[in-house]
C-alpha cells in the first residue's frame, strides 16, 4: 500500500465534494487509481481523462509511487 495526495478540479471536484484528499491505495498506475476513485465518488464517464504526477503531465500507465501528488485532468476548456 502507498499513500498518494490527490487534487481535484472541475467536475471531479464537484463529484468528490472536496478539493484534495490523501488516499491509501494498492493501485499501481493512475488508471487503476482513477477506477478506484470513480467507483467511490461516482465520477461521470470521461473518455479522455489525462493525468499529472507531481505537477507534470504523465501517463495513465505510469508507475505510481508513494507520496506522489496526482491530478486527474478532465477535458480542458479555457479561453
Amino acid at each position, binding site marked *: 500500500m502507498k499513500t498518494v495526495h490527490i*487534487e481535484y*478540479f*472541475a*467536475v471531479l*471536484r*464537484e463529484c468528490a465534494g472536496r478539493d484534495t484528499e490523501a488516499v491509501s491505495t494498492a493501485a499501481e498506475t493512475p488508471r487503476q487509481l482513477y477506477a478506484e476513485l470513480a467507483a467511490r465518488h461516482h465520477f*461521470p*464517464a*470521461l*473518455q479522455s481523462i489525462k493525468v*499529472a504526477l507531481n*505537477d*507534470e*503531465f504523465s501517463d495513465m500507465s505510469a508507475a505510481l509511487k508513494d507520496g506522489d501528488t496526482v*491530478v486527474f*485532468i*478532465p*477535458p*480542458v*476548456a*479555457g*479561453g
Partner: protein
Amino acid sequence: MLEFDIQDADLQPDQWRQELMDPACGGYVSFEGWVRDNNEGQRVLRLEYQAYAALALKEGRRILDEAQQKFPISHAKCVHRVGALDIGGMAVWVGVSGGHRDECFRACRYIIDEVKHRVPVWKKEHYVGGDSGWVNCEACAGEH
C-alpha cells in the same frame, strides 16, 4: 519578454500592451476571449473558470516558448482569468509584438489555440433556467 500568468482579478490589456512595445517592432496582434451570452444553443448567464495553476503556468510558458521558436516574434504574453465572469467579461488575453505582422498573427493564433487545448483550465457555464455544466464534459453537462 515571454510571460504566462493566471489571475482572479480583471485582466488589464492596456497595461500589458505597453510591456510588449519595442522600437524594433512594426506589428502587434492581440486576442481577447470574451464571455458570450450563448453557447451551443443555450443562453449563458455567467461563467466560472477554474485552473490547475501549478501545471497551467508551466504549460502556458512552454506554449510561449514554442511560439517564439516557430515564429520570429520579439515578445509575447498571455494571461488567463479564473473565478466568476459575467457576460462580456474577458477570460483570456494574448499579446504578441514582432518585426512584421505575419509572425505576430501566426504566433498569436498559435498561442491561443494551444492554450485552449493544453492548459488545464476549465469553465462551468450557468444557463438561463438554472442549469449549469462543465464545458467539454458532455457526460456530465446538466447534471451539476
